[in-house]
């Protein structure tokens, strides 16, 4: 009987492969049939994850403490938007569902996702808490599907296109923090991918 750890199934076409060990970070394994990427040969992935998630946590804090945009419609009439304030305002207007939904997909889920990924990489680096690392990775995987800060970021730009004729727009610290946070998120979940992190967990413990 073949050891399941040494097998890979292509996520695109379902072909079965035998896992081979890659020796250099430049190498990657691809599907023999459809050429889909299966995994890469990372070195010290846990350190990369640790530094990226730590940076992301700082950026997330900044993105929530400072205003994202400030607008000036002339005559000294200004307005600024802090994400949590905007959600609270929506709630006060009686839009319970949208404000709650926004709170979850823009604040709670992104924070817990990155926090658990941070814990995961910390556990892997320390080489302890096998079960804790697994739990953290499960949480990160489930919640990352409901992470919509990237869409919100594009929405900010769309909204600015709608009002740029009437107001002077100033992007705040939180805007740039959010941009880099989204960038890190995309790198972690779209480039490195969760399956690679699971492979790391399997190799280390």
């Amino acid at each position, binding site marked *: 009987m073949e050891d399941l750890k040494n097998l890979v199934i292509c996520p695109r076409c379902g072909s079965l492969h035998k896992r081979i060990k890659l020796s250099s970070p430049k190498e990657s394994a691809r599907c023999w049939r459809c050429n889909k990427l299966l995994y890469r040969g990372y070195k010290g992935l846990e350190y990369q994850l640790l530094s990226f998630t730590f940076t992301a946590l700082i950026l997330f804090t900044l993105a929530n403490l400072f205003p994202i945009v400030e607008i000036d*419609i002339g005559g000294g009439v200004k307005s600024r938007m802090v994400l949590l304030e905007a959600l609270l305002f929506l709630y006060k207007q009686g839009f319970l569902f949208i404000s709650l939904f926004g709170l979850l997909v823009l604040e709670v889920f992104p924070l817990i996702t990155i926090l658990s990924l941070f814990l995961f990489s910390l556990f892997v680096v320390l080489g302890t808490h096998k079960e804790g690392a697994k739990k953290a990775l*499960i949480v990160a995987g489930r919640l990352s599907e409901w992470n919509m800060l990237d869409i919100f970021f594009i929405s900010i730009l769309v909204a600015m296109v709608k009002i740029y004729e009437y107001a002077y727009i100033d992007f705040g610290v939180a805007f740039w923090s959010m941009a880099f946070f989204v960038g890190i998120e995309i790198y972690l979940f779209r480039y490195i991918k969760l399956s690679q992190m699971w492979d790391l967990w399997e190799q280390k413990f």
Partner: protein
Amino acid sequence: MKYKRCLHCGAVNYYQDEVCRRCEGDIRLDKKRAISTSLAFLLSAIFFYIPANLFPILNTSKFAQTQGSTIIGGVIELWKEGDYPVAIIIFLASVLIPIIKFFVLFYLLYAVYKGSCESGKVKLYHIMEIMGPWSLIDVFVVMVLVGLIHFNSVSVIPGVGATSFALMVLFTILSAKALDPRLIGEECE
């Protein structure tokens, strides 16, 4: 067919297993359950599409005069003003794409039901999966505008349509998630 892939973590498991050996996720391949759950969410999404287009998604009040604007109304207004490209983009993104998504989901449901195998359908599924949440742009734009524009003279308040629109997108995402891509083509050899 001896093995199957876990959708959550990518681990290879034996075909008869119900729980992933690595991430403990549910890896059952249940055609009946996938179809009925997905169909239920899809019908809910179609239901919410109606109020999402009938009611204003945005209310603008200028000096105590409130004016609501629906998606279609906004498109028509932009068209009359001569902003053809913007009008077309909003029409495509907010009115047409949800309908296309409904049709694609029905088509994929039918494919799962029939058990037909084509790699093109898996591709279609993955496009649906990635595209799904992006329809929320409309809702988030309303959120940003509401958060920014509340002056004494002018203020923007979300409308009932925004809630319906958000619910519609949410149910389409859930419907796509309930469908198992392994049932469409991955498992066909």
